């Protein structure tokens, strides 16, 4: 699938999202739950702002010394008998992974949730060599069963579906006969997945945090599927974005505390799985062979730029859960597996402006994202930086817009021009005013008045009123 979802143009995708009332109902209900959960969990922890600042410091420090910590991680994974591969591109990562799988002669692969493997289209690469790749995260599995419906949220990939729709998918694709009760749906999924775990020869996981000074990968789940995927198959491959690293267990504890609260409002998820290299002597379970694939795929290009903070993201989706735009258009409208505010920042960086130039504008800059981010990424500011880039460096802004901004500069940098403009504007608008409002605006006002009225300009500008008043006062 890759990072890009579908080929439809942005406007078409948004139209589709806005007209999907099931999805919008499911998304707004989930947003309410997740937002309340995060706020309650933050309050219960206390000193949330201090925790956020601490999280921010950790991410900043780690990214500033990324090469140092990556080297430390490689050393420690190797010492424990694991193999590490640095993939500069998606192709390199897939080539390495398919080679490992081929060497093992494996056909059945079980996966726990991972965004980076979506980003690099790993499933497709493995399917091409004849493997059966089974998603074991419940949300991901639902989407896989539903003919590879793309994820619409980075933590809850099937957020756009309600329970009735999930029941229908199971019924149509797998012959499910029970109700839409979540317990019954989950039980059915568990029975189906248990077989897959037992049969899988290779387990592939993502990585929430790799711990540099111990060579450990940690996985945060509620379903326990990552633990199954890392203990049952004989070979384990963990795929991580190159920024998904912490110096030591101490920092990992801080970030996990922030992650689970920000993502789902939990103090701790049901499972935090930590795995250090392959099974050691005397260990009862764990993989016999362990591979860590560190994926760059455009990340190192972000390092050292004004967008470096985008790499601080710990993929909690708190920004998505509060975004009022996401609320109405849903995840698929973003055309990227990374939706919402972080997606609007990250997708153009990883996938380029040609495919994602609209995303930085799909925001009111309300800053709900920035306020929610547990590691204080200034998301709305990064969206403005994208806009600056699109205007200045990419030259991709509409001509009309750059002309009006030139006019803006002339009209606001000099009081004389402002005076002329603000006196002239009401006169020009006058023909369009009816009953003290403009219902059918000309030019740039057209898009405004297509859905709402525009106020008629005041009969007397404030500044004229003020001046006249001063004159009168000085007379009396």
């Amino acid at each position, binding site marked *: 699938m890759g990072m890009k979802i579908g080929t439809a143009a942005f406007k078409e995708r948004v139209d589709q999202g806005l007209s999907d009332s099931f999805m919008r109902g499911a998304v707004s209900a989930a947003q309410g739950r997740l937002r309340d959960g995060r706020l309650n969990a933050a309050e219960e922890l206390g000193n949330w702002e201090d925790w956020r600042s601490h999280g921010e410091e950790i991410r900043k420090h780690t990214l500033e010394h990324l090469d140092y910590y990556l080297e430390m991680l490689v050393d420690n994974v190797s010492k424990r008998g694991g193999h590490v591969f640095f993939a500069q591109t998606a192709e390199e990562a897939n080539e390495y992974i398919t080679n490992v799988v081929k060497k093992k002669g494996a056909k059945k692969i079980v996966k726990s949730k991972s965004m980076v493997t979506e980003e690099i289209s790993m499933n497709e690469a493995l399917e091409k060599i004849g493997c059966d790749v089974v998603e074991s995260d419940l949300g991901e599995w639902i989407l896989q069963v539903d003919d590879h419906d793309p994820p619409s949220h980075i933590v809850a990939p099937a957020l756009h579906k309600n329970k009735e729709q999930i029941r229908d998918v199971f019924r149509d694709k797998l012959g499910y006969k029970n109700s839409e009760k979540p317990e019954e749906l989950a039980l059915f999924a568990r029975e189906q997945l248990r077989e897959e775990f037992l049969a899988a020869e290779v387990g592939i996981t993502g990585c929430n945090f790799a711990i540099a000074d111990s060579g450990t990968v940690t996985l945060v789940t509620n379903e326990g599927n990552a633990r199954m995927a890392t203990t049952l198959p004989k070979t384990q491959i963990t795929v991580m974005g190159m920024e998904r690293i912490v110096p030591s267990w101490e920092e990992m504890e801080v970030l996990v505390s922030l992650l689970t609260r920000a993502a789902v409002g939990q103090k701790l998820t049901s499972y935090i799985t930590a795995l250090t290299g392959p099974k050691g002597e005397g260990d009862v379970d764990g993989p016999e062979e362990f591979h860590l694939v560190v994926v760059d795929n455009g990340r190192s290009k972000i390092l050292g730029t004004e967008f470096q903070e985008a790499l601080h993201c710990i993929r909690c989706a708190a920004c998505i859960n509060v975004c009022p735009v996401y609320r109405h258009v849903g995840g698929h409208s973003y055309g990227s597996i990374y939706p919402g505010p972080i997606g609007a920042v990250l997708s153009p960086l990883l996938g380029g402006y040609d495919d994602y130039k609209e995303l930085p504008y799909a925001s009111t800059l309300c800053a709900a994202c920035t306020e929610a981010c547990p590691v204080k990424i200034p998301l709305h500011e990064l969206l403005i930086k*994208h806009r*600056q880039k699109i205007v200045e460096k990419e030259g991709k802004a509409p001509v009309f817009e750059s002309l009006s901004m030139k006019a803006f*500069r002339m009209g*606001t940098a000099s009081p004389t021009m*402002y005076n002329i403009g*603000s006196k002239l504007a009401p006169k020009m608008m006058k023909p369009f005013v009816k009953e003290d409002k403009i219902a059918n605006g000309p030019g740039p006002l057209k898009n405004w008045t297509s*859905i*709402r009225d525009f106020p008629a300009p005041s009969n007397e500008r404030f500044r004229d*009123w003020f001046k006249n008043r001063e004159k009168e006062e000085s007379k009396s």
Partner: protein
Amino acid sequence: MKVSLFVTCLIDMFQSDVGRDTVELLEHLGCEVDFPEGQTCCGQPAYNSGYLKESMESMKHMINVFQDSEYVVTPSGSCGTMFHEYPNIFAGDAEWEPKAIELANKTYELTQFIVEVLKVEDVGASLPARATYHTSCHMTRLLGVKEAPLTLLKNVKGLEFTELPDKHNCCGFGGTFSVKMSQISEHMVDEKVRHVESTKADILVGADAGCLMNIGGRISRTGKPIEVMHIATVLNSRK
């Protein structure tokens, strides 16, 4: 106390009565209000659209206009926030950064100024009506002014106050967003209007002309019987 009014371009041109209410209110509270005539726009429309160079010229102009002011007070959370962003925008500029910091430090949103500087919580206003309040995003999240408008509104005689459900969600204005992405904006503002309706309020109060133009414009288009009022007008009511 001497106060310079930064009226904002929207109020200057489209809602001059809000500007008058602001002046009268401040004078009622004992302030001496002046209006530096050279003022234009804070630069936000260009800045938020990515036109940094264009916006910086208006910012420099505004810094100069308010150079001698003791306090700068504005009836807009969003435009006030913009003044507070200037130091970040001019960070590292030896000439303009200190000036930007000086301006930011003396700039207050109207209700913030009344509560924090004048230390007044009851302005003596009265308005018999049922009202709800729209918390504008920049004012609450970026400027951090959350309580001041509510404190003042709760002390308006006769005003029956109901909290707006989902008040944290943006109304869909977002400056140029409202015209660039009008299809999305429409759904956002519709949800906001539904929430306003659910409070059964006669008046929707807000502290930002932009949001009020958006929500008010939609209310007017859909013919709902709800009046939209700037908080300066409410606080200057003596009915």
